[in-house]
């Protein structure tokens, strides 16, 4: 090695070494320093419990929105579709407070239990059809939430769940599909199907703008929704990145100088684009994946378009994925 460096640095032709930036020591050192600094900057730890502005959006989280049976424009290519039943969906995503209440109640009556570093609940299993990449979802206890995920906004003392300060009115996140389903099931509700979710976001066929790409209309600006680098008061792109906003935040109010645009769907649902992906109910043939809709705080605005789908296995949890129920 010594010989190698010696021959490279001392015995080489002077002119080629001078003109070749590769052999320019000062440049190499500056480059190495810049790279080291850049990598060090990327290694700084993220304080997941950093303080965050608290705003009261005035959202009534027990509110439901009515969606009548009927036609709607489905998908990116505006196919006609119909839902033959009336239904209701939660006006806002389920909050961390609501989920903590559910956990405390269902722990007390034994519907869910602690299993090591997670909360589990029973799921009756899915039919396995041997699809390509399909995984078996057997009957048994499945994880609702992990207890050791630092991004979880709940605290657990072994008996009771409480919400971390400031997150009471934020959407519940770090919750699996099983956890979302268990919540809705506990109250005798259910997760919405993808089609129900889409109709709730898009509105009825009649009238102008029925093919709207966003719940509120044809275009998106930063004050419509919480998405990646949308410059909302909760994000800090230098360290934390994007964080959830309280449910119903984009309601036209001004919060400490930050002006929002009232952005409900035609049926009055809020947060149908951005903030958190929302689990839906459908189980498709030869797939174990569960589908999510709506985009999130972590995605560009293209993923907030009504027809965009996301999926993951039913045990997947994320600080950018939550849910709401239907009935």
């Amino acid at each position, binding site marked *: 090695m010594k010989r190698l460096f010696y021959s490279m640095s001392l015995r080489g032709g002077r002119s080629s070494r001078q*003109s070749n930036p590769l052999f320019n020591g000062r440049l190499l050192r500056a480059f190495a320093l810049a790279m080291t600094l850049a990598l060090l900057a990327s290694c700084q730890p993220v304080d997941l419990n950093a303080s965050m502005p608290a705003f009261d959006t005035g959202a009534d989280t027990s509110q439901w929105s009515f969606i009548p049976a009927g036609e709607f424009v489905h998908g990116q290519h505006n196919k006609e579709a119909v839902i033959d039943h009336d239904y209701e969906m939660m006006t806002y995503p389920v909050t961390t407070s609501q989920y903590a209440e559910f956990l405390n109640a269902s722990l007390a009556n034994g519907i869910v239990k602690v299993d090591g570093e997670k909360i589990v609940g029973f799921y009756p299993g899915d039919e396995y059809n041997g699809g390509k990449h399909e995984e078996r979802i057997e009957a048994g206890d499945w994880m609702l939430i992990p207890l050791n995920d630092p991004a979880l906004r709940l605290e657990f003392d072994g008996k009771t769940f409480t919400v971390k300060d400031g997150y009471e009115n934020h959407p519940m996140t770090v919750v699996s599909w099983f956890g979302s389903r268990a919540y809705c099931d506990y109250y005798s509700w259910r997760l919405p199907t993808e089609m129900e979710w889409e109709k709730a976001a898009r509105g009825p066929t009649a009238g102008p703008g029925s093919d709207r790409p966003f719940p509120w209309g044809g275009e998106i600006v930063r004050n419509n929704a919480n998405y990646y*680098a949308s410059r909302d008061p909760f994000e800090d792109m230098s360290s934390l990145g994007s964080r959830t906003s309280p449910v119903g935040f984009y309601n036209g109010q001004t919060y400490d100088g930050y002006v929002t645009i009232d952005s409900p769907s035609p049926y009055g649902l809020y947060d149908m684009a951005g903030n958190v992906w929302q689990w839906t109910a459908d189980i498709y043939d030869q797939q174990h994946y569960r589908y999510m809709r709506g985009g999130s705080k972590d995605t560009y605005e293209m993923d907030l378009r009504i027809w965009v789908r996301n999926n993951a*296995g039913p045990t997947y949890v994320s600080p950018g994925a939550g849910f709401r129920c239907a009935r």
Partner: protein
Amino acid sequence: MQFVKIRFNYLFTSTKGLILVAIAMIGMVTAVWGMLSGPMAELGVREVVVRLLGMKLIQAEREGRIIILYHSIAMAVVSIEVYIITSLLKMKEFFKSAINATITVGYLFAMIFGMGFAYFGHNWAFHGLYIFGLSLIFFAGIILAVALNPWNPEYYVTDKNHAHTKKGVSVERIAFFTMAVATLGSTLFGAIPGSYFGNGFEVFLAENVIRQPHKTYLEDAVIGHLHIMLTLIAVALSLIVGRWLDFKGKLHTVSMHLMWTGTIVISLGAWSVVIVDWAHTIIYVGSVLVMLSALMLVIFGWGKFIREGTAHITKPTIGQKIRALVSDPLKFGPLWQMVFMNFTVSGVGIFMAVKLDEIMRVIPWREERITLTGHWHILSALIATIILMYYGDMVGLKGKVRQWFGWGILVLSDIAFASVTIFELKRLFISEAEQQPLVNTLMILADLGLGMLLVILAMLMIWRLSDLFKKQGRWTEEIDHELSQEVK
């Protein structure tokens, strides 16, 4: 008038002029459209560009717009490769003129009218002209295949260092011919679904259907199409670099046989994606053949640089050999990028395939998409850098300019590609909640690398533009020059 005419002739009839125009067109499109996504969108630059240029962007048409954008850039890249092939390989002058004229009109129509249709309101005449442009490129491909006919005795070779059959048929020419024919066949896998989906304007990006357990034949065809077209562009470039560096000897013989067989196998594999579930196995076999062929080119090229660079030294040390190897970044660079491709593209692709159920299918679909798009964006950009380095050589960059141009492209692009690769695979080692500082660093490195690369390209283009105003500029030397004269 004579001033314009003579320069027009240079730009649109000479090989180097045609390549210059195509690089300039790609550079402009990349610079402008690069401002519509990623960090530029985050910074608010996109809104300014859209307003300034009067673009009309409809949310539901994003995927369609992107497909036209990709095709516009790809057609110009294909044209550059064709210009180089017609200038490097022997063929009748008629064929050369017909191919270059047809493909030039083709890619300019596809790019100008395609982008006009996609981004500036829907003028249907533009859409027709876009399709017309693509069709012209296809016809140019047919003429190229005819012109490359390796069994034409005029192109037989006798040089024993140049791989050939007993009869004298050049194996290298067979490889070029196979690539051209395979490309023509592969276009159908895009054109037919394109006619079906495009006519109803129900376009989709392949990465958006990747997790569907059941895809239609046409959806599978699109997936096969995009993979094989990019592969064939890379195969063509590998052959071009080989000819440029005067690839010959035993390695050449083995490499060229591997290349033409590999091209056939990999094309059949990509085509069979439509009908069989195990098509990827055929693709793996073809990929191994093609990659081995490229490896032989790298071994030949690097050995040659070392031999030539140390010819004056009786017993060169390892250091002297390495210095000889890297002394000319414009020659070393393209082969290095082929090696680097294994770390950032092939290796990642194989890892993703092997760990698909274990890792890639555990992360959400939208994140798997990032790995897929990053994967082929890097491959495309690597191809572009190799072309740029060859262009730097063919316009005769010398001394410090050559060194800075070559190393600039190489170092900046590789920093960017390495950063994008880490970004693609970040979920393997960092959680969503804790990723932002890493993402910021990687994005800065990637954007800095690619941004500076565009600055280098802009400087080159400004120099070439200013040269055009000179009476006895470099362009006058290039007007009748063929690349085959520069093979050494």
